[in-house]
């Protein structure tokens, strides 16, 4: 996935911002906070996960998503968002 694909989608950027702020959340809560529906949120998260930016942990039926801080790009994007938010 190219950088344009990540940042050209408002939905993906919103999801990334939410994960920076809250750290870890399940899909329904991410969808609620991002104002997106469940399917769209799931698709965005899938894409972000494929790009290595986020990862999930499964607890029974529940998946909890968080930023993948082991990925250098993930780390940088997190920093970028944090910086952006503090210098608004």
């Amino acid at each position, binding site marked *: 996935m190219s950088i344009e694909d990540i940042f050209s989608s408002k939905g993906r950027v919103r999801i990334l911002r939410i994960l920076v702020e809250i*750290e870890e*959340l*399940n899909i*329904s809560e991410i969808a609620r906070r991002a104002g997106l529906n469940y399917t769209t949120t799931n698709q965005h998260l899938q894409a972000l996960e494929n790009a290595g930016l986020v990862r999930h*942990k499964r*607890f*029974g*039926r*529940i998946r*909890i998503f968080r930023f993948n801080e082991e990925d250098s790009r993930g780390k940088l994007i997190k920093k970028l968002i944090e910086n952006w938010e503090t210098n608004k």
Partner: protein
Amino acid sequence: MYHHTNVFKNESKLDINYVPPRLPHRHFQLNLLNQFFRFVLENPGKMAQRVLITGNVGTGKTVLSQHFGLEMARKAKERGINLNYVHVNCRECKGSLFMILQRAILNFHPHFPKRGYSAEELLQTLIQILDEQNAYLILATDELEALIQIGGSDPLYKLTRIQEDRLKAPQRFSLICILREPKYLDSLDHSTRSTLQHNIIRLEEYSLSKLQDILKDRVDLAFKYGTVSTSTLHFIAELASSEGGDARYGIELLWRAGKYADALQLSEVSPECVRKAAADVYPVVRKDIIFSLSLHEKLFLLGITRYFKHSEAAYLSMGEAEGAYAVVCEEYDEKKRGHTQLWKYVKKLSALGIIRTELSSVGQRGKTTCISLPGVPASDLEQELTKILSTEKRRSNPHVN
């Protein structure tokens, strides 16, 4: 010019949730707890522990467990062991295993979803989290009565046997059960009861001198130097002692008396402030005590409060109490209990300090028990009981408004 005086140095030290750095007169019990859980620091994962702490209201059950938990977690951290102490009040969790486990999980994942799964799934999730984080958990279930009353044996059985099918895996989950009276355990099935009764720590009521030491500690922490005299302290300790050695009541009294002193612009907490505070802090109107009464004990007490509300009399006889109870039973559509049963209620309510009883004096025909409400406005108690009874009615019959 308005001059504002303040007897407090730090009133948060009198908060009900404050855990003091030392626990006077509970060293032995604290050492016992440390011994029970020594393995957590020395051989983590090799075993799990279940401990039962019992004792009356205000004997320091909660603070003992919290003090131990905080200390244990600190020591474990020093040794690089990921030990977590989570204190949950079962009554606050409405006696629901689901909510208790949820509180434990939120300690690890603060945004874990709050709906959409069963208590069993949560239990599995909790163990999974502990495994993944290589963590150990001591879960303290305070006011266990609520969990037993609502869920019976089942939830406790699940909590105590959580690790039985994980024989080779590290034992990560230990339990501290806190309850007022061990008699609640009688309603549990034999296996659950026996699991819990291995390690029991019984907290005796504090004596007057012990209460004085406890209150002295709190005065030093919360009040400015010289604002609470020894005689005032002794007076508060005496009142707390007469309430069955209830330290929590004493601390509450101390705080309220301090507030009165501030409101009256006094530079010192006077005995008069304590008396005013004592009139305010009704130890017997504590919701937890009233809540723990059985339905008919509550109905009987409601009858008594109604009698006093509409009468100028200081005492009512056993016969009058029975009459008032019969009216309440009719109102709540309950079959009234017999005289012997009501006599037992009187004894229990008297033991709890909610009512006071004495034998009728000369001048009255025959012998009867006279019942009074010591220092508690009947209207307040009636209001409280009506509220609790209507909540219970709604819970047992959710379709009726």
